[in-house]
C-alpha cells in the first residue's frame, strides 16, 4: 500500500532515524498497526543515512564512517523484520491535532488519519549567523557528512571546518581518513576537551571510551599535520562566494584563504511540527534552543502526539533508541495493547539507560555550549537568509517599539521565506532579548501553521482523502455573492 492509498493507521511515526526505527519496531511487535514515514529512500535517518547500501558495498565507506555508524544496521534490520509499514520518500507537511498527517509523495499529497503520532524528526544544524555566512561556498559540517553517507562524495577542494561540537572533530577525522584536502579546523568552543574531561571525571565514569574517541580524533588530526586553531569572532570574507575566513585567536586575528568553509555550532531540535501544533515548549538554557515539553514517555501537550529522540531535546543517537522505545510503550498502552503496569515495567531498563546517557550528555552540553559572545551579530549580518533581513534592520524596528518576534516577522518579512523560519527563529529571539534586556525564554516563538514543508499548489488542489464535507466557506456567503465575508 502506498501513502496515497492509505486513509488510516493506528500509529504514525514521522522520521526513520534511531528514535523512529526503535519506536516502530517495538510498537509493531506489541501489535500496534504502525507506519513509519520518512523523506529518504531507505531507513536510517541522518545519523544512519543509507546504512543498508553502504554496508552491502563494504567498500571504504563503513571503515571511514566508523563503528558507531555501522551500529545502525541492527536497528534497521530489526525494523525491517518487525512488520511495521514503511513509507519512504514521503515528506510530512502537516500533523494536525486531530491526528491527520499530511504526506507528499511522488508529487501527490494526501491525508492519513492516525490515532497516535510519534514525531521522530530529530535535529537540525544550528544556524551560524556570522558575517558572510550566506555566501556560496559556506555549508554546514552536517551537509558534508550527509554527502559522504548518501553518495560517498568527499570535498574535492581544500576545506576549512569551523565551529564547535562533537561532530566537528568527527567529520574532520572522517574527511582526513578519506583523504579529503582538509586545510584547518577552527574550534570556537570555550575550553579544551582534555581539560574539561579532567574536571568532569567523577561524573564520566563509564564513558572513557567516548572520551578517548574524541581525543583520538584530535590526536589523529594533529598527527596528519592538520592545522588546529582555537578562535572566536568568526568572519567570512568574499564577494560572490567565500574567499577567506578570519577569526581571533590568542589575541591576534588569523586569516585563512579558502573556497570552501563548513560551519557547525551543534544541533538543535527540529521542532517545526510541535510548534505548528502549539505544543508547550521550553527554552533550554544549556542547549540554547526551544524544545517541546514532554512527560517521561515523550508525550507532548498535544493529546495525540509524542516526540522521541533529538526532536525533544538533543541527547544523541544512543539515547534516541531508548526514547523511541518509551514513546512506543506509551502508544501501545494508549492504544490498548498493554496495561499501564506492563508499560511501566518494560520502561524501566530504557529509563536507566537514559539516565546513564544523560550524564555524558550534560558534559557535552557544557563543553560545547554555543558561545554567543564569540559570534556577535553585527548590523550587516543577515538573520533571515530567505528574505535577506539583516540584524541592523531588526534592531531598528525593535528601537521603534516592536516587542514581539511575530510583529517583527510581519513587518520585516524575517522568517516568511521558503525555510519557514527554521534558519532565523533562534536568532530573532536572541536579538530581541538582547536589545530589550529581556529573557529570551519570554520572547516566544514564531507562530507556525501548516504546511511545515512547502506544498505545491497542484498537490493541495488534488489532496487525497480530504474531507469534502468540511464546510470550506460560511453558509451566509453562499447565495448572493455580494453578501460575501
Amino acid at each position, binding site marked *: 500500500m502506498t501513502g496515497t492509498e492509505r486513509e488510516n493507521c493506528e500509529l504514525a511515526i514521522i522520521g526513520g532515524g534511531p528514535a523512529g526505527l526503535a519506536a516502530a519496531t517495538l510498537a509493531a511487535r506489541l501489535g500496534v498497526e504502525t507506519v513509519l514515514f520518512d523523506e529518504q529512500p531507505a531507513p536510517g535517518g541522518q545519523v544512519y543515512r543509507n546504512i543498508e547500501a553502504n554496508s552491502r558495498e563494504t567498500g571504504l565507506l563503513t571503515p571511514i564512517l566508523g563503528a558507531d555508524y555501522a551500529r545502525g544496521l541492527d536497528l534497521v534490520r530489526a525494523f525491517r523484520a518487525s512488520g511495521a509499514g514503511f513509507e519512504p520518500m514521503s515528506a510530512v507537511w*502537516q500533523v*494536525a*491535532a486531530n491526528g*491527520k498527517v*499530511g504526506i507528499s509523495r511522488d508529487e501527490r499529497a494526501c*491525508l492519513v488519519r492516525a490515532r497516535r503520532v510519534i514525531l521522530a524528526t530529530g535535529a537540525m544544524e544550528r544556524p551560524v549567523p556570522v558575517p558572510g555566512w550566506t555566501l556560496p561556498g559556506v555549508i554546514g559540517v552536517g551537509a558534508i557528512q550527509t554527502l559522504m553517507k548518501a553518495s560517498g562524495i568527499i570535498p574535492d577542494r581544500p576545506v576549512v571546518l569551523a565551529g564547535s561540537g562533537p561532530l566537528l572533530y568527527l567529520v574532520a577525522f572522517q574527511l582526513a581518513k578519506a583523504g579529503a584536502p582538509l586545510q584547518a579546523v577552527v574550534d570556537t568552543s570555550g575550553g579544551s576537551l582534555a581539560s574539561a574531561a579532567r574536571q568532569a571525571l567523577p561524573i564520566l565514569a563509564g564513558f572513557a571510551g567516548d572520551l578517548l574517541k574524541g581525543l583520538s580524533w584530535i590526536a589523529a588530526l594533529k598527527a596528519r599535520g592538520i592545522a588546529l586553531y582555537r578562535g572566536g569572532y568568526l568572519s567570512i570574507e568574499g564577494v560572490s562566494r567565500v574567499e577567506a575566513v578570519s577569526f581571533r585567536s590568542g589575541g591576534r586575528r588569523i586569516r585563512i584563504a579558502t573556497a570552501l568553509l563548513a560551519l557547525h555550532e551543534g544541533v538543535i531540535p527540529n521542532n517545526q511540527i510541535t510548534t505548528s501544533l*502549539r505544543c508547550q515548549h521550553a527554552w533550554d538554557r544549556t542547549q540554547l534552543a526551544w524544545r517541546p515539553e514532554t512527560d517521561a514517555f515523550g508525550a507532548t501537550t498535544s493529546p495525540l502526539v509524542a516526540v522521541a529522540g533529538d526532536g525533544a531535546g538533543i541527547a544523541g543517537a544512543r539515547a534516541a533508541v531508548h526514547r523511541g522505545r518509551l514513546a512506543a510503550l506509551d502508544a501501545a498502552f494508549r492504544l490498548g495493547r498493554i496495561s499501564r503496569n506492563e508499560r511501566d515495567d518494560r520502561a524501566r531498563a530504557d529509563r536507566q539507560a537514559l539516565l546513564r546517557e544523560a550524564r555524558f550528555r550534560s558534559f557535552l552540553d557544557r563543553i560545547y555550549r554555543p558561545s554567543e559572545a564569540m559570534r556577535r551579530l553585527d548590523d550587516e549580518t543577515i538573520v533571515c537568509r530567505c528574505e535577506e533581513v539583516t540584524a541592523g534592520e531588526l534592531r531598528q524596528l525593535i528601537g521603534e517599539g516592536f*516587542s*514581539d518576534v*511575530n*510583529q517583527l516577522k*510581519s*513587518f520585516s*518579512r524575517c522568517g*516568511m*521565506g*521558503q525555510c*519557514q523560519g527554521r534558519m532565523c527563529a533562534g536568532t530573532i529571539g536572541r536579538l530581541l532579548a538582547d536589545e530589550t534586556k529581556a529573557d529570551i525564554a519570554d520572547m516566544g516563538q514564531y*507562530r507556525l*501553521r*501548516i*504546511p511545515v514543508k*512547502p*506544498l*505545491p*499548489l*497542484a498537490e*493541495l*488542489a*488534488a*489532496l487525497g482523502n*480530504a*474531507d*469534502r464535507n*468540511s*464546510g*470550506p*466557506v*460560511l453558509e*451566509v*456567503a453562499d447565495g448572493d*455573492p*455580494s*453578501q*460575501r*465575508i
Partner: protein
Amino acid sequence: MTRTDVIVIGGGLHGCCTALHLARRGLRPIVLEKNTVGRHASGVNAGGVRQLMRHTAEIPLSMAAMAAWETLAETLGPELAANCGFVGGVGQIGIAQSAQEMDWCHERVAEMHALGYDFEEVIDQEELRRLVPSVADICRGGLVSRRDGHANPFRTTQSFRRRAEQLGARILERTRVIGLEQGDGGWTVTTDNGVFRADIVVNCGGAWAWQAGAMVGEGFPKSHFASTLMVTSRMPHFIDPVVIGIDRVLSFKQTEAGTVVIGGGILGDPDLDEETAETVADRMMESAETVYEFFPILRKATIVRTWAGLEALMPDIIPVIGPSRVARGLWHAFGFSGHGFQLGPIVGSVLADLILDGESPIPLDAFSPSRFTAEGKLKPQAH
C-alpha cells in the same frame, strides 16, 4: 489611575485610526490593546482594498474610504503613507466562469446603477484577458471595479498607529480590559495593566468587542470566524488586479514581494479563548482547486505558509458603527465580518465626527447597534 478624555478598546486598524482622528481633533486618546497592535484581523487579512461586490449599505462608506486611501499622505504624511504599500487603480475583478455568473454580473450592475453607483462594470472575456493575461479560457468575463487595489495590512495598521502616536495618542499593548463601568466621574476602565478614567469609550474590540458590550449589559452577537490565507513562494510578476470568485471560492493577489496571497473566505478553526486560529488543509483544497483551474500559471506555485485571522461576524454581514444603546459616552465600531480593511482609513474619521459633532456626512443607519435585541439577536424588522 490614569485620567484622559477618551479610551479606545482595541489596537486594530479601526482602533488606531479612531485614535488618530480623535487626536487630530485635540483629544488625548489612550488605546488599550490586549495583545500587540494588529495582532488579529487587522494585521493578517488579505489586504484587499475593494469596493467591488460590497453590500449596498456599505457603499457610501466604502467610497469615502477609497478617497481616503487615495489621499493617505494627507492623513499619515508621505513616509507612513508609503509604508502602507497601497497599490490603487489596478482594479479588483470578480471572475465569472458560468453563464449564470455572467447573468448575475449584469443584474448587479443594473442594481448599482439604480442606486446611482457606476464604479462596477461588466467586462467580457476579451477585456478580462487584457486585464489579466494569465486567466484560463474557461473564464468568460466578470465584474470590475477599476479604482480598487490592495495594501499591506500589517504595515498599514502600524502606520496608523505611528501617526496616532505622533499626534499625541498613547497606545498601550499587552493591556487587557477586564472591567468597564460608568459612574459620576465618567468611565472607569479596569485593565490588567492599570485603571483608566475617561469621559468617552470607543469599542473597537473586533472578535472580542461583544465582551465590552456585555460589561455594560449591551448584547451583541458573539459570533466570530477565522478566514484562511495561503501564500506562495515568490514568483515573477504576472498579475496586477486582485481577482475574486463569484460563485467559486477564490481570491488572490500578487504582492509587491512577488508572493501570491490566496484566500476566498476559507474557514479556519478559531479559538477565541486562546486568541488564535488553525488552518485546515481539507478546506483549503477547494480554494486551491479554483486557483488551479482559473490560473494555469499558478499550477507550479508552492504554498509556503498559511494563516487565519480572528474576526467578528455579524449575522447580516455588515459592521456595527454608532452609539451604545444603553450608555452615553460609549461608541462601537466592530463586526466588519471579514471585509473591514478597505474601510480602515474612514471609520475612525466617521467616529470622530459622530463623537464630536453628533453627526456624520456619511449614512450610517444600517450599522446602528440598535438593530440588535437586548440579548444580541438581530431584530426581525432589520431584515
